[in-house]
């Protein structure tokens, strides 16, 4: 097990290294405007050179790469070029990430608490009222562009329920609408998949045997079907939770939440490569970690999954 973990970890680090380095190199091939801003044409050659030197862009690429990683290991994420010029990136992230994370974690908690039981309920009541209502809900959420229901939620939430329009740290209630908005998509997704997995399991032979044993319908649902259906869900839960760090662009915008939503898009557009670099590193690491944790989690729940080959044989 240890060997497997180490192997997986090394593999992850390698992937990360490749991703980050490739992006790093590609970014360096961008046209000059990107690095120096709009006033580029007006600058003198000297200014250009000195600005480039400042950003460490005159060194050969391998050297730049080396410096980047060296700084990284020392905990220095660099400074932003454009977004907040001269400001340490670590500080920028430190102010934004916790906000999005809080929003994200709360909405994931809500999604899990509502979506998974909803899916189970829908499977159990297949074809009946709850299934139909649930299906209607899922279809609505999945078919409508998120922008629309986020907007409507804000509109009616603020007018009818007098909920706060703008996020403020001091008022936790102001998080209510944003959390609900963000969670809707996940609720729909979890319910949809949970229902699917539950139904798959409900038709299996082992359920018939359990019935023939005289096990009550309730026990069959809980101890057999739900428990088994949860295993494939477990695979994408860690990833979903971790990736909330990326923030929700629209919701955060609507409620003026100073999170990481849309940050990557923003810095790419503004060509703040230093920030792009760091964000790519961060998001890739999160993605890989999510997958790894998902596999690990699933392996814990399903004894058939042998993460290490060849140990379990009759």
């Amino acid at each position, binding site marked *: 097990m240890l060997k497997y973990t180490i192997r997986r970890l090394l593999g992850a680090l390698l992937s990360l290294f490749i991703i980050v380095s490739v992006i790093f190199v590609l970014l360096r091939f961008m046209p000059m405007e990107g690095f120096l801003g709009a006033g580029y044409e007006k600058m003198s050659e000297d200014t250009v050179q000195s600005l480039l030197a400042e950003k460490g862009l005159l060194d050969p690429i391998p050297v730049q790469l080396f410096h980047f990683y060296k700084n990284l290991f020392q905990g220095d994420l660099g400074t932003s070029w454009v977004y907040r010029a001269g400001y340490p990136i670590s500080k920028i992230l430190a102010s934004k990430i916790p906000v999005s994370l809080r929003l994200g974690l709360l909405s994931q908690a809500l999604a899990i608490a509502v979506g998974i039981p909803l899916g189970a309920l829908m499977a159990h009541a297949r074809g009946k009222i709850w299934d139909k209502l649930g299906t209607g809900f899922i279809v609505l959420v999945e078919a409508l562009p998120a922008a629309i229901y986020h907007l409507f939620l804000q509109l009616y939430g603020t007018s009818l329920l007098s909920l706060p329009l703008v996020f403020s740290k001091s008022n936790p209630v102001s998080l209510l609408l944003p959390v609900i908005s963000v969670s809707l998509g996940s609720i729909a997704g979890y319910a949809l998949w949970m229902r699917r997995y539950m139904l798959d399991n409900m038709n299996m*032979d082992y359920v018939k045997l359990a019935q023939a*044993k*005289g*096990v*009550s319908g309730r026990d069959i649902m809980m101890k057999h079907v739900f428990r088994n259906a949860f295993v494939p869900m477990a695979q994408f839960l860690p990833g979903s939770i971790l990736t909330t760090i990326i923030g929700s662009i629209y919701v955060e915008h609507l409620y003026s939440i100073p999170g990481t939503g849309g940050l990557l898009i923003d810095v790419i557009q503004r060509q703040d490569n230093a920030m792009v670099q760091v964000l790519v590193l961060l998001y890739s690491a999160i993605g890989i970690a999510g997958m790894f944790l998902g596999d690990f989690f699933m392996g814990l729940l399903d004894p058939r999954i042998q993460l290490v080959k060849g140990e379990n044989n009759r």
Partner: protein
Amino acid sequence: MGQKTDAAKNDTIKNDALQNDAVISVRDLNVKFHLRGQRLHALRGISLDIHQGESLAIVGESGSGKSVFIKNFIGLLDKNGWIDSGEIWFAGQDLAKLKDEKVWRKIRGGKIAMVMQDPMTSLNPLKTIGWQIAEALKLHQGLAGEAAKNKTAELLSDVGISLPETRMKQYPHEFSGGMRQRVVIAIALACNPEILICDEPTTALDVTIQAQILQLLKDLKEKHHLTTIYITHDLGVVANVADRIAVMYAGDVIEVGTCEEIFFQPKHPYTWSLLSSLPQLAAGEEELYCISGTPPNLFQTIQGDAFAPRNPWALQVDFLYRPPYFEVSPTHKAKTWLLDPRAPKIEPPAAIRRMMELGKQPQARAGRKESADAK
């Protein structure tokens, strides 16, 4: 015309059943399904008694309704099916009218347990086999904790699994097909049933494992005084385990008799066809005997004998009127007009005549005497 009240009629049936020593008594059972917007008449008036302590085999091709039939004994008919009419008497109750889930749950497992066909899928892959046995022990024997653990080990030994204490902590995927089937049998036993239904218990297994499992089932039947019902299409398996055989075709039991009567003196043309198509009986023939045509469409009402269109020995009357049971012996009856005293005498096909000869031979008689003595 004295009209018997329902209660009085039920009493008569119950008394009949008791006299026959019948532990389950099915009377004129009709089961239908809603399928693709139409009604499927899956069981068409089955009447059958299952006697205490016997081993009954129900034989038929797929679509004959044998699985549907036994599902009624544990109330697990598919959601789109229902019992249209008829009765199933068990322990003084008509199971056909039983709707109370609580009562059913006591019957399922506790009185009537089932071993299913595919051991690879019958067990929950995410629970240890010990857990799955203990679940049954808790439900039907009220055992928990240490007592359950000991009983589980005992059951596993009973079904021939060595090192039970270790193995009960293992998961199904760590067992081979034959071993898994033994676990399923252990689970059935844990319920402490009176009747054990085995639905094609060995079809998915290798022939040597099959033989061992059948032997195990026979031994367990003796040890626990069970009544067993086997569903199978394999007439070799039937010859091994059955005391009595019921042959099903198109939702009806068309012939029923003791094992020897069915093998050595079959009377219904379908039984003849079934036996004839066995490769073992095709000695020296060029081709295997096969029954032409396909089973009838049960969505439509059938006129006359359901087997008539495929029956090379069909009489005209077979297409008009459904034959009733004709008695051949107190234990043997068949639904064929050929047994009517007015019917022409028909010679059964060559393979069947060979079987009849086999049944009369001296060593066979000696065998019969031996097994009779042994009982």
